[in-house]
């Protein structure tokens, strides 16, 4: 999933460079949502809501 996230940025940056496309902000939001999903998967919620107390 991390690969897809970076790939999304690569495609968006390419279109920004070549076509001056203005939809890149939406791609960033989608990539950040993917990042949040990855982050939630990385946290161990079994103890203390994932916080080492």
């Amino acid at each position: 999933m991390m690969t897809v996230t970076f790939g999304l940025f690569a495609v968006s940056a390419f279109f920004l460079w070549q076509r001056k496309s203005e939809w890149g902000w939406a791609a960033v939001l989608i990539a950040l949502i993917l990042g949040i999903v990855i982050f939630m998967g990385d946290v161990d919620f079994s103890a203390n809501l994932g916080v080492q107390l």
Partner: protein
Amino acid sequence: MKDGILSPAAARVLNLVGMLAMIAVLIGAYVYQFSYRELPCTLCQLQRVAMVAVAFGAAMNVMLGPSPRHYGVCLVSVLFGLAISIRQTLLHINPFFDSKTGLPTLAATSNPPFGQPVFGLHLYVWGVVMFAAVILAVGVVLLFNSQFKANAPEPAWLARLAALSVALLVIVVSLETLTTFMECGFGACPNDGGWDWWIFR
């Protein structure tokens, strides 16, 4: 002054400098990764995602002209990156904690910091400093309304410089995509910081 204190062209130059700074940090992380032979962990990769997103917001300002929407992209991305780097800093802030048993311990090496320090701080702590600095920089630049003037003339040298710098961003992000695929494939990334590339297993 005709264009106000900060003209659209000057704001684009400032964004270009910020974008190049982000690219420099990403390249620095690469140098660190290959010189210490340490693959980035999941949280480290997510901080790189945030840096790329901040650089992308700045790139939009550089290519399309300054816009509150593009600064918004930077701020949302930086908030994401700050949350990740603070999380990782807190995970390693107490060395007297055994992360395997979940109990306090007197053995200081039971919860060691991740990776090698750079100028005395670990990369995730530098992440906190850097993301906070970006918030300050974007906040200060947003104070100047004159940069948002519509139909501002675009100097030819700036258009060429913008295209070159965004091309550099494309190259760096493509490299990130390639190395992330080599490290993680399409699944979860390893968290042990070793040199175990998914593609060579």
